[in-house]
């Protein structure tokens, strides 16, 4: 690792001030950033640790919405259970030690194309809250490792509507346990959302054709013969065709599990 200083603000305002420098980089749970620093793929002059900001932590219901502080670790979301599909998703990230450090805000800000949380947040139609504004999930994820966050903007919380039914199914890449493909399906009334991670060259996406079919008939066989359009990732772990096939299979399984 290159040398850097660490700042540990205790409030969001202090963190925003510390991040104003060009050299500064926010540090969430560090489960992606620290390995990245070790490989010298990032070289910030200052790391602003968000781990000491109590206002970013905790889970609370707000009417029909669940509000999760951005600094809440995966293990705490897994233990919550208010939205069972989301807790199951969190319980499947990485391993137990990683889940005690990694945070929902860090995962969303990083927007790894194979991460689980982007699928859950997009699949629930959640809202990402920052220190400046509220961003709908559909506008938040803008591409591979790209989000709508501006420089110095910090995710403070995520607001997740509670669905009538939801499920997340992922097919793990066996070495990394990241999603080779992961599909989050939610249904509230006749509104169905299908969010897919791991598959697309553009990062997490909504499979709108499947949503339309499932809105008319919420059953796995409503998807018979369908597969997603668009450029799927092709790499040593799976071809584009294989991933497209997995998207359809996993979506059916998620519908069946709802």
């Amino acid at each position: 690792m290159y040398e850097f200083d660490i700042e540990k603000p205790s409030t969001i305002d202090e963190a925003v001030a510390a991040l104003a420098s060009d050299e500064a980089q926010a540090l969430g749970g560090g489960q992606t950033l620290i390995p990245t620093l070790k490989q010298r793929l990032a070289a910030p002059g200052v790391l602003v640790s968000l781990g000491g900001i109590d206002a970013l932590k905790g889970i609370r219901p707000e009417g029909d919405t669940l509000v999760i502080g951005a600094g809440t670790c995966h293990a705490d979301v897994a233990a919550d259970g208010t939205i069972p599909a989301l807790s199951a998703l969190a319980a499947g990230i990485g391993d137990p030690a990683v889940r005690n450090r990694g945070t929902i805000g860090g995962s969303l800000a990083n927007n790894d194309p194979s991460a689980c949380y982007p699928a859950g947040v997009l699949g629930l139609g959640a809202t990402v809250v920052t220190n400046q504004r509220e961003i709908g999930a559909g506008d938040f994820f803008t591409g591979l490792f790209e989000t709508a966050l501006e420089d110095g903007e910090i995710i403070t919380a995520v607001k997740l509507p509670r669905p009538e039914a939801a499920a997340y199914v992922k097919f793990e890449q066996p070495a990394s346990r990241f999603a080779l493909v992961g599909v989050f399906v939610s249904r509230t009334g006749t509104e169905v959302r299908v969010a897919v991670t791991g598959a697309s060259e553009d990062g997490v996406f909504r499979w709108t054709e499947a949503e339309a079919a499932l809105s008319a008939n919420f059953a796995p066989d409503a998807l018979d013969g369908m597969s997603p359009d668009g450029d799927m990732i092709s790499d040593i772990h799976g071809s584009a065709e294989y991933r497209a096939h997995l998207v359809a299979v996993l979506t059916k399984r998620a519908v069946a599990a709802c």
Partner: protein
Amino acid sequence: MAQVSMTVNGKAVSAEAEGRTLLSQFLRETLGLTGTHVGCDTGQCGACTVHVNGRMVKSCNMFAAEADGARITTIEGMAEADGSLGAIQAAFREHHGLQCGFCTPGMVMAAAALLADNPKPSEADIRAHLSGNLCRCTGYHNIVKAIMAASGQDVGAIAAE
């Protein structure tokens, strides 16, 4: 450099650390607690597992500065007050839950975290919990047995392989 203070195995410690000093380095090189092993140094193998405020974490994937003010437990803190092996350590010896022993400190810390949350885990619970602790001797079977035994459960029910 900044001053970092924490409680390690019940003892208050304070020392200077660079921003980039990992908790694993701080424990091993600054405090001399070399029981915490560094295997992969990439957050995958779990040999460096310690408890931070009662929760298991990979100490190579956390900066010492982030642990400022925290309560840390390492493998050196797992023995009984008289220096004899703790229950989990004793079970690892009894059931030969180690081969080369390199992963063992992390395995014991992971086991302790599991049993604190789930005093009577099933075999499946144990195997799932160890998903981030790798034993390259592939000695998992006896490790699972040892954790079962440490929880006071019968190990005879575990299949031969």
